């Protein structure tokens, strides 16, 4: 029972450019469904999907929920707090219990890198990674790619700079893999204390100054800067971060051409991004959210592949 993407979606690093293209192409008709009055198709009717969110997240969980419901699947939300000591055990037990209830798919978000893989290795159901630690957030990467493709009509050769705390960002990592596989040129910009030391070996250009990054880029993806980074000593203050690295209208105007602005949300207005940029003419932040539902529908659709052995029994299924 392996569809074109395999059993699970754990990250973008294991995928090929063709597989990513398939997901993006499949997302196109799903965009249209969200524009209809009745936003529902019967495609996954009867499928049981569990949203297993160990980390608080409103936007990703709700986006997945809409995707599942618009495909007529039955979605159940399970929120759990991961205990750092018994984390592994809790995860396995929860998963096996759910499997015993005959679920088809699990969408998991967890604070530990590798948690999605851990789960996928232990249960038969399809596992979709909605963000594991600082490792990957594949559906976010995909919706970013779709949003870029919508605007530029292609990804090959596109210059995209990821700005901010790359060190702690699963969104950054998924974007780096996804963009690279689609032939885009990738750069990062931020203080070196927030960039992985080995960043130069990830096939990525590094800009130490936001002005240089803006001069180069066709599009920038601005990562959220978390308050914890300051208290953990990676940067002195959010204020200085904004002064030195913040994407402001002045900095964009100095470049003198259009640069597309993306942000995975939620935004810290006035820290990594100023309001007049977030709400400005080049921001596609809301398009990202819309595309998020379509991309997730596409992923659910592609991963819920049928079983060919039953196709034999069905004899001529799909014929006119």
């Amino acid at each position, binding site marked *: 029972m392996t569809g074109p993407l395999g059993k699970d979606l754990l990250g973008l690093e294991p995928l090929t450019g063709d597989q990513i293209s398939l997901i993006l192409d499949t997302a196109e008709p799903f965009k249209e469904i969200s524009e209809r009055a009745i936003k529902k198709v019967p495609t996954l009717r009867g499928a049981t999907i569990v949203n297993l969110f160990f980390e608080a997240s409103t936007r990703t969980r709700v986006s997945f929920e809409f995707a599942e419901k618009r495909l007529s699947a039955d979605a159940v939300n399970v929120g759990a707090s991961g205990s750092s000591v018994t984390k592994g055990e809790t995860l396995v037990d929860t998963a096996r219990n759910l499997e015993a209830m005959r679920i088809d798919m699990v969408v998991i978000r967890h604070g530990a890198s590798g948690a999605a893989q851990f789960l996928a290795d232990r249960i038969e159901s399809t596992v979709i990674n909605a963000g594991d630690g600082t490792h990957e957030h594949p559906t976010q990467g995909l919706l970013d790619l779709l949003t870029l493709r919508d605007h530029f009509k292609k990804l090959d050769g596109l210059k995209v700079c990821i700005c901010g705390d790359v060190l702690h960002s699963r969104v950054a990592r998924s974007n780096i893999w996804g963009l690279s596989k689609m032939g885009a040129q990738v750069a990062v910009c931020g*203080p*070196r*204390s927030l*960039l992985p*030391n080995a960043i130069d070996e990830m096939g990525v250009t590094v800009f*130490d*100054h936001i002005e240089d990054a803006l001069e180069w880029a066709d599009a920038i993806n601005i990562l959220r800067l978390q308050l914890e980074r300051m208290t953990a*000593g*990676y*940067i*002195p*203050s959010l*204020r*200085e971060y904004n*002064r*030195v690295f913040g994407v402001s209208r002045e900095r964009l105007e100095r470049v003198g051409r259009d640069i597309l602005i993306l942000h995975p949300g939620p935004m810290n207005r006035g820290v990594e991004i100023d309001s007049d940029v977030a709400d400005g003419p080049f921001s596609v932040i809301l398009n990202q959210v819309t595309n998020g539902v379509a991309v997730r529908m596409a992923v659910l659709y592609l991963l819920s592949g049928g079983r060919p052995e039953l196709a034999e029994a069905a004899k001529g299924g799909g014929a006119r």
Partner: protein
Amino acid sequence: MSRALFLHGGRVVDPSQGINEVAGVLVEDGRIVAVGPRLGDGVGADAERIDCTGLVVAPGFIDVHCHLREPGREDVETIATGARAAAAGGFTAVCAMPNTDPVTDNQAAVGFIVRQGQRARAARVYPIGAVSLGQKGLALAEFGEMVGAGAVAVSDDGKPVASAHMMRTALEYARTFGIPVADHCEEPTLAAGGAMNEGLMSAKMGLKGIPSEAEEIMAIRDILLARRTGGHVHLCHMSTRGSVDLIRWGKERGINVTAEVCPHHISLTEAAVEGYDTNAKMNPPLRTADDVEALQQAVRDGVIDVIATDHAPHHYDEKEREFADAPNGIVGLETALSVNITWLVKPGIIDVVTLIDKMSVAPARIFHLPGGTLRTGSAADITVFDPAAEWTVHPAHFKSKGRNSPYAGMTLAGRVHYTLVEGQVIHRATG
């Protein structure tokens, strides 16, 4: 109105341009307009002339490590008195360490130092900002804001950056602003309570010693972190043979490490502590003759990049205490040139060209400061000195408020005659 100044007859030594010959230097409106052997004819009659016959004319000295005590301890030094002491020592610029009270860890404090330096109208004063807020080693200071206000480097000197994670982060974060992180290499738990070098002498004198490893452990830590992060680490006041070996190891591998030595560490040994003289107490302490020899050789072969003073004035009363309780530090701005000449140039370990490189050209280069050159068009920051003249050190005559010098009463070779900043004479030797 063009103000012209003509320095003639001196031996111009400018390592930045490979000049080492008798020549004249013509200055107009604070800028060097010409350097050469036969300039005399082109000089106007109303130009001020300074006869430099028998003297060396060099790019102004730059001290990348000194303590000016203001704000907080204006009783032992102010930025004005410190800048004037610097000028008396031939320095046209100094970098002031941030262990003031309050600590110079924000843009307002950096701006204050800049303004006070401008008002002093003597040597230029470049602030060094703190690495951590309050130099407490807990939270990074805002490097960007401080650099924006005029800071040229960051350091927690006085103290080490004890946390390796903080040192690493500081080196990474400093890359954005292109500044060095200068570390006072002292492993705090090894050095705690120490008053002098650990060895036979400390054992005999009953004083707790600071082992050389306290410095070397931090030196190699910093060198390795510089390798990992690609940042620039500057090692302050190196004092042991072991440190020299580690710096050489680092440089051979292309790691961005630069190092300084102080005049006292290439001239005095722990023997100077004999009699419990607190004017020989500083941190890092005076070490053994073997360490001194290693440091002298390191200056010669380039493992040590610059000579800096670590000028640390203290109040007479504070130093008049039991050895273990006395504060660390000696003044050095007004004796640096002479100590260097007496112990490095006279014995032939280095020549005057190398000396000027270590005191002017290299400091400007590694801290990205203007100066360190007599190139046409650059600001006329010039030091004119007699490399041979002897004089006796009388701390009472110092321009600095500090009198704590171990060289008191010694006769040294080498004397500053003129110090010029932007073409203005800010120090002229008397007598």
